[in-house]
């Protein structure tokens, strides 16, 4: 940069990725907190892209995922990234996918977005891109909070969780975003947990093998917001699956279902207790458990009635 520039051509505002020996999607030196689910998710994405021989470009709205790129003059991302406005990742990605399509290019256009950008401010944009069935892989890393702005509620925040804007614990349940997306009859919608890496990898492979709008919801531990132990992140989200709080399942074309992991139905308190965002006394645990079981029962019936046959 030159403050008394006399250039004849305009220079352009990009943070170039400086070549480094670690030729990976998310590089060392990124600003993710220790134990952040995003780091695992992005590394997993990198691995499966490489395995399937695909390249990608990311559209990332305002969220921790763009902060982690770090500061000028370099970026922690080893792939092309465009930061979008908070609500706009699916719109910007639609433009990118459109250009790929007319140029017969096969890069995966991927939205990497938080729950705020997905469940809240960007929902209309995402719904429109889903209705148009744009050729986009949309991955929501769901840390159930606005992490980047210091931990406010989102509509993904679960019942009972304390955030800076629900100081007494959230009184509403978590929004069922997967049903909303499935209702658009998109080719593929699935939930992912870093506590179940093989299931995670398989779903990424499936999503990368399909065209159209594919939606993946990843339960993303956030030690900073959840006030949990960074080293325990993967174990923690495994407990959420075991308690039936975050069921793992897939939906094809909004029609056919597969349930991937049968919960062990552990006491949700085992999950709550490891995070200071929950106070067990605030929560009607039995009611939560009942609702989780009913939800899971409904999913199983759907999977029996409308099984996915691959």
């Amino acid at each position, binding site marked *: *940069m030159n403050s008394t520039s006399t250039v004849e051509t305009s220079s352009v505002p990009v943070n170039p990725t400086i070549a480094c020996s670690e030729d990976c999607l998310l590089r060392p030196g990124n600003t993710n907190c220790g134990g952040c689910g995003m780091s695992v998710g992005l590394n997993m994405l990198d691995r499966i892209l490489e395995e399937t021989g695909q390249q990608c470009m990311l559209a990332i709205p305002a969220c921790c995922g763009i902060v982690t790129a*770090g500061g000028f003059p370099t970026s922690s991302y080893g792939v092309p990234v*465009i930061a979008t406005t908070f609500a706009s990742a*699916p719109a910007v990605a639609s433009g990118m996918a459109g250009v790929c399509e007319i140029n017969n290019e096969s890069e995966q256009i991927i939205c990497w977005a938080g729950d705020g950008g997905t469940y809240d401010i960007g929902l209309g*944009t995402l719904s429109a891109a889903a209705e148009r069935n744009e050729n986009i892989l949309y991955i929501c890393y769901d840390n159930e909070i606005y992490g980047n702005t210091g931990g406010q509620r989102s509509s993904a925040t679960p019942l009972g969780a304390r955030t800076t804007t629900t100081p007494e614990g959230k009184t509403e349940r978590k929004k069922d975003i997967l049903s909303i997306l499935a209702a658009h009859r998109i080719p593929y919608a699935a939930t992912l947990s870093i506590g179940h890496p093989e299931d995670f990898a398989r779903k990424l492979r499936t999503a990368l093998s399909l065209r159209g709008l594919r939606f993946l919801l990843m339960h993303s531990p956030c030690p900073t917001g959840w006030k949990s132990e960074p080293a325990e992140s993967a174990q923690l989200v495994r407990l959420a699956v075991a308690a039936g709080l975050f069921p793992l399942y897939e939906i094809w074309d909004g029609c056919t279902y597969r349930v991937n992991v049968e919960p062990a139905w552990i006491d949700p308190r085992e999950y709550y207790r490891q995070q200071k965002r929950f106070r067990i006394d605030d929560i009607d645990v039995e009611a939560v458990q009942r609702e989780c079981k009913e939800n899971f029962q409904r999913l199983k019936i759907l999977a029996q009635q409308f099984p996915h046959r691959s």
Partner: protein
Amino acid sequence: MSKKLVTGNHAAGYALSTAGEANRNARGAVCGIYPITPQTEIVEYVAKFPFTKGRVIPVESEHSAMGVSIGASISGARAFTASSSNGLAYMVENIMVAGYYRLPIVMVAVNRTLGPPWNIWADQSDTLMLRDFPWIQLYCETNQEVLDTTLLAFRLAEDRRILLPALVCLDAFIVSHTQMGTDLPEQELVDRFLPVLDLPHRLRCDKPATMGGLVWPQEAMSQRLEIDEAMERVPGVLEECRTAFAEVFGREVTGAVETFGVEDAETVLIASSTIATTAREVIRNRRAVGEKIGLLKIKMYRPFPEAEIRAACRTAKKIAVLDRNYAAGIGGIFWWDVRAALQDCSPSPLVQGYLTGLCGGDVTPSVIDQVIGDITSRHRATKPIWMAIEAGKEKSR
């Protein structure tokens, strides 16, 4: 050259579409579109156009229309859209991003009153609300000027020395829905005029980079300075584009300003868009009987053509600025900027602002006559004068 009778919206749609088509041998054209009166016919035209290599994405909002165009542009395609009034207000966040990302997107904006009140008629306050963003702004008077300026805007915006988006503005209904004889150039001529787009910072897998990551204060400020330098290069590059335009199309397209009779004028009227059309006729008649009066039409509002305005007002003792737009607590927006541009001229002319035709009112020759009557007998400038307001005031009481 064969002229056809088409509306201003048709002319704009034609220019956007043929410009997009002209990029078919490069990365094509992709855009997001969304309707709003009175620009809807523009995006409908674009949606029907048989692009060889293009995709028009009918999105769910203006915010996304610009979002799609941002994604398309950063991927190297020629991108454009159109909007108006509340649509522009809804789009603002992404309008700003397009500018700061230095994406040469062209947007046609039909100037319409911002609501409330609900009013669909001509008023420039919508695009002028965008005045502090890094967008070139051009205001047109006729359908031909809309068409020509839109084509010109692509070449200007995409020039490596500029790389800034451009807004082409026209008055609601008075231009958007009025048919005028317009030359619609063959695709082949548009191809000759518009080089294919080669965006230097397009996202590509072989050279990864992050657009819009964190930038520290000094470097970020330096990026702002680079925008300022590009803005400063606009008038020079605009002149080059006009020369190329005349070579290809065999006609002139207006530059940053257009003057009529200012050479010896003691009184100069300053106007833009269709108010300039009416004022020109009034002034033509008055000059025919020897009045020393001239017209300065401001075509390019951003970057603000300060030098051209000072040159055009060299002999003026009195200047009347007519604004069909309003900044609350200020008055007319052109007036405010003209005053700043002329403040240290010596001897300094009297600059008076007139608010006229806001929210779509007719600015008739008699309104122009009233302005001329006021300015010629005026010895001191006062706060902006609201013209022909009495009838409306009476009724709304």
